[in-house]
């Protein structure tokens, strides 16, 4: 029987800030963006702030309303990434099978570690891990650990007691757990899926497991239907996949919640340019190129809107990505357009902002024109851009035209300068106004970062 451990750092970003600065301990704090008076989202709230109803995703404006004394601390993602690497390195000292689930969560298959150490169960190892985190990294850092026969139940277990919990789910406990667990507590069941399940009378894990598998498959398709049925039974056969066994990237993307809602497309364009530059830089570092560009917007009322374009050529330059995404943004705000005109002229209008070599672009609409026109008037809250349909650069023919190779040389030179002196040492003039504000957007998924430079002790 496998022994899977799930470790979840409690109120992670906020606790790291309280670890860094002892004068923040015991106080309601939240980690947000830069600038006083700017509306950003709380990435994390301290345990004290949570008592006032502040949680991850609450805007700092709402947080101040809920808790007038709240201290908003600027996020430092370098710090959080470094600390989480140290935490994961502690886990890796027990087993090589560590799967980083997010910046503050990881699964570890400790089946052999328990046997090797001669323990009856995983409790002593879990206690040791907790003690080492406090001893080797910081005494204020706390984590909740869940131990179970599979990942689904281990995650459920770690969520049961917070902060500083240690929960074990044994085979004999599973039935009782299923009866008292609501479906929204299961990892992978979001708000929309919960509503759909509620609509067919399913509110608990037990009810999900007892619901006929055939009906779930009919309603949700073969993949999700089977997955939901197994989840309801407490079955999860997915292995713990360490980072070196993870599949390659399928997309590169960044999103940013704006300090204030905007209706001004030019402001959105500047953010889009910065995000596109970051996406392009990451793609070049990873040696990838892609040809499908997605634009993603979230409005003030939290409704979403997305569009994508597939190009005939592969790109990885930030400005190329921007030009495509910018076209989608402009189309989103096209007041005068009507449905037929837009759909019929999609290629023509896209070509107007693309380079000559990408004149065969085509669009795929994700929502109706009616929604698009309606949403134009809504203030934008979040902007995101991503590139999919990617290939390694060496799989793609390199440009041979002099103007293209010149661009390539300039791009390589800028990359070399930024590699040496740091990101955005050299950047486009259009970004001057917003450089400081969104410089701190974390660079992608922490899970792929090698655990380097961890041998130093302090």
């Amino acid at each position: 029987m496998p022994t899977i451990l799930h470790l979840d750092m409690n109120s992670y970003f906020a606790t790291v800030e309280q670890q860094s600065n002892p004068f923040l301990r015991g106080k309601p704090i939240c980690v947000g963006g830069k600038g006083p008076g700017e509306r950003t989202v709380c990435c994390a709230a301290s345990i004290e702030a949570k008592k006032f109803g502040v949680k991850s995703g609450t805007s700092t404006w709402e947080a101040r309303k809920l808790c007038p004394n709240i201290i908003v601390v600027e996020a430092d993602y370098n710090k959080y990434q470094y600390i989480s690497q140290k935490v994961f390195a502690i886990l890796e000292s027990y087993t090589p099978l560590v799967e980083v689930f997010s910046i503050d969560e990881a699964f570890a298959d400790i089946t052999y570690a328990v046997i090797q150490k001669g323990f009856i169960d995983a409790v002593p190892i879990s206690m040791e891990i907790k003690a080492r985190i406090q001893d080797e990294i910081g005494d204020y850092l706390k984590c909740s650990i869940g131990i179970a026969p599979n990942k689904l139940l281990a995650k459920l277990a770690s969520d049961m007691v917070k902060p500083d919990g240690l929960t074990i789910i044994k085979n004999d406990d599973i039935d009782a757990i299923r009866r008292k667990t609501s479906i929204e507590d299961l990892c992978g069941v979001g708000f929309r899926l919960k509503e759909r399940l509620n609509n067919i009378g399913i509110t608990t894990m037990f009810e999900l497991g007892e619901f006929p598998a055939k009906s779930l498959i009919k309603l949700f398709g073969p993949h999700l239907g089977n997955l939901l049925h197994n989840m309801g039974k407490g079955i999860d056969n997915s292995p713990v996949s360490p980072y070196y066994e993870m599949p390659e990237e399928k997309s590169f993307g960044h999103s940013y919640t704006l300090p204030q809602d905007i209706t001004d497309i030019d402001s959105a364009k500047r953010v889009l340019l910065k995000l596109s530059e970051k996406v392009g830089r990451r793609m070049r570092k990873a040696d990838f190129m892609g040809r499908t560009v997605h634009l993603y917007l979230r409005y003030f009322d939290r409704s979403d809107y997305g569009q994508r374009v597939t190009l005939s050529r592969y790109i990885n330059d930030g400005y190329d990505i921007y030009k495509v995404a910018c076209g989608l943004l402009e189309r989103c705000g096209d007041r005068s357009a009507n449905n037929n005109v837009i759909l019929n002229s999609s290629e023509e209008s896209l070509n107007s902002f693309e380079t000559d070599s990408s004149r065969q672009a085509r669009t795929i609409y994700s929502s109706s024109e009616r929604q698009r026109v309606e949403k134009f008037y809504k203030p934008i809250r979040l902007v995101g851009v991503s590139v999919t349909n990617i290939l390694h650069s060496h799989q793609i023919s390199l440009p041979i035209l002099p103007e293209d190779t010149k661009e390539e040389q300039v791009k390589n030179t800028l990359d070399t300068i930024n590699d040496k002196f740091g990101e955005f040492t050299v950047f486009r003039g259009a970004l001057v106004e917003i450089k400081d504000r969104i410089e701190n957007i974390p660079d992608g998924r922490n899970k792929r970062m090698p655990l380097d430079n961890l041998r130093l002790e302090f």
Partner: protein
Amino acid sequence: MESIKVLVQFDDNKVKPIAFRRNGRLYKIAKVNLVHSFKEGDRRIFNFHVSDNANSYNLRFESDILKWFLEE
């Protein structure tokens, strides 16, 4: 960010700032709360989050030029 002088104790593989001097005044460090490092370009930077009895400070050590700075 201002350049400062820092008194450091080396203990086995551990580095521990003891005190720093700023504008002629000596600040004794009561506790090193957290240490982290990151890269700025090809430079490795170390940040020491320290505190005395009244305030917390962020001491930045730039390993390529071997200099200490006090961050705001």
